[in-house]
């Protein structure tokens, strides 16, 4: 089976590219095929890119605090586009202000993300999570 394809980008009107770029570089070095959409990327562009590239996962970055608004309905967009169970990660400074992480995490899992990552997450943690989830999925029977 060829290299997994990942779509990365910073959602909404968010200019914070540094962490997303370092993450994308690290994912490439780890052998993934990475479609990096960069900063200020509308939710729809993520989905479009995922379809065009038959991506296995979408990694959404949101640093500027408005991710709580930008990410609403993201999973629905995927489902509408037929990407019913594409792996969805989100990470960064997801909400406005210093809020208890468990609560923030719950909000984004409820939005349909498979995992959410707290501020200051290091790339190693992202890589480990991807590996684990893909392994699990390889084990699983293919989706109906």
């Amino acid at each position, binding site marked *: 089976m060829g290299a997994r394809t990942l779509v990365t980008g910073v959602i909404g*009107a968010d*200019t914070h590219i*540094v962490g997303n770029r370092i993450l994308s570089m690290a994912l490439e070095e780890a052998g993934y095929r990475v479609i990096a959409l960069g900063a200020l990327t509308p939710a729809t562009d993520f989905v479009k890119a995922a379809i065009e590239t038959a991506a296995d996962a979408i990694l959404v970055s949101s640093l500027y*605090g*408005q991710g709580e*608004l930008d990410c609403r309905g993201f999973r629905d967009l995927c489902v509408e586009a037929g990407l019913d169970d594409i792996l969805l990660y989100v990470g960064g*400074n997801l909400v406005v202000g210093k809020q208890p992480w468990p609560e923030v995490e719950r909000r984004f899992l409820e939005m349909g993300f498979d995992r959410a990552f707290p501020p200051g997450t290091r790339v190693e943690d992202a890589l480990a999570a991807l590996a684990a989830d893909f392994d699990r999925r390889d084990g699983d029977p293919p989706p109906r």
Partner: protein
Amino acid sequence: MNDIASALAAPALTEAAIPAEIFHRMRAANLARWQTGAQVDFDASVAFHRALPPHKQLAVAMRRAHAERRCLTQPRGGVATLAMQKALMIALDREGLADIVPTTTDSYTRNEQFAAAQNGVNESERLERSLLNGFPIVNYGLAAGRELIEAIDKPAILLTGTAMPKLTAEIGFAAGYTGYLGSGIAYTTSYIKELSIEEGIRNYQYLDRLAALYAEHGVELHRRQPGFLTGTNIPPCIAIAICVLDCLLAAAQGVRHYGLELAQTLHLVQDAAAIAACETLAQEYLARKGYRDVFTPVTSLHWMGAWPQDEAQAATLVSYGGTLAAIGGAVSVTTKTTHEAHGIPTPLANAEGLRITRMAIYLARDIRLDGLPEYEREKDLIAREVRAIVDKVLEMGDGDVAVGTVRAFAAGVLDVPWSPNRHVKSRVMPARDAHGYLRIFDPGALPLPKDILEVHTDGLRARAAAQGVPYDRNLAIQSVYELSEPLARLMPN
């Protein structure tokens, strides 16, 4: 919309001042883009500014601080609703003793997504917490702005990190804000992905022309350039070169009061040298272009790169940020807080950051480094670097700053590390050297003399050697994280 605006502007890009009647038509078109634009009445605005007491005029405050060698404090701060914003600004004024009170706009407003901003306001009111990272002043309009200005007893500045400032500025100035942070080169390279450098320059030519128009009517406003760029390990020479170019563009539109910002490198000597060099070089190039009466105070910014999660470590960056600004002789300092790595600070944490900084300024108020050999060396180094870059840009533009800047970015002669903008090469890669100086690992196409590049490379090789790591790009990436690392890793027992 920008197309119309630029169509109305001089057909070909030039640094020249926008002719009066063309600017008149540009303003009409601009104000028509959103309903609150209609609230702007220039003469009434001029009258309001003239009626402001001096201690609420930022231009006056900056000139006084510069003359008295004082360092003013200013935080950032924006939340979604008027009630929250008012409470925040009052807290910063009273609890934080801020010398300058800010209004930061939200990121939808920055990108002129006013409908999205409105949704953010509504959701924030529904959930009774701010879901926006700033205050949507265009949506709220003139009256709300005035209410904020009247709620505080300090000068107010608009912080609007955007390449599209035209509506925000019109409404902000009309509301009584006496300061506006932003510039065509700096913000276009750092805050947007698709917009061209040319468009960004045109947008700020509009803003600077507007500030000049107020000046023509006897109202001096504090325009300010955000030299921090992407905030991520920007070497002084790159920041200052762009400060100088943005300053020349503003002067060409008629601006005579133009502040320059520099993000701290967190190296005491490098920061003091950069602050001193920045004002000297700006004045040097202003003189070359024949502008002899432009006031260019320098503002120092607390560390703009990644912050540590540990609030104790963060408190040190806040405190040291005040020390660096004071010793460097900055006219004002822009503060952060112990919450920086986590999220937008509460009003309390924000006020606390202001007081930590203010105390640091008090303690270092009379300390200067003049005569320190290392400091004098660094100042000369920075000056030579900046001249190498700026001279080349002016040459490429056949003397026109706007044209030269666009061509220089296309060629990578001007470059910004970690830029999100497609029109910026972003090949240049900075890193921190063995002694804590920010140096350039990969210069990309920056026109820096060989002997200077060796200074940079030597320091970085020394670091690689000291840490026993290869001399490669990872030095630059490590340097992005360095100051956010927990102490146990940064400085083990």
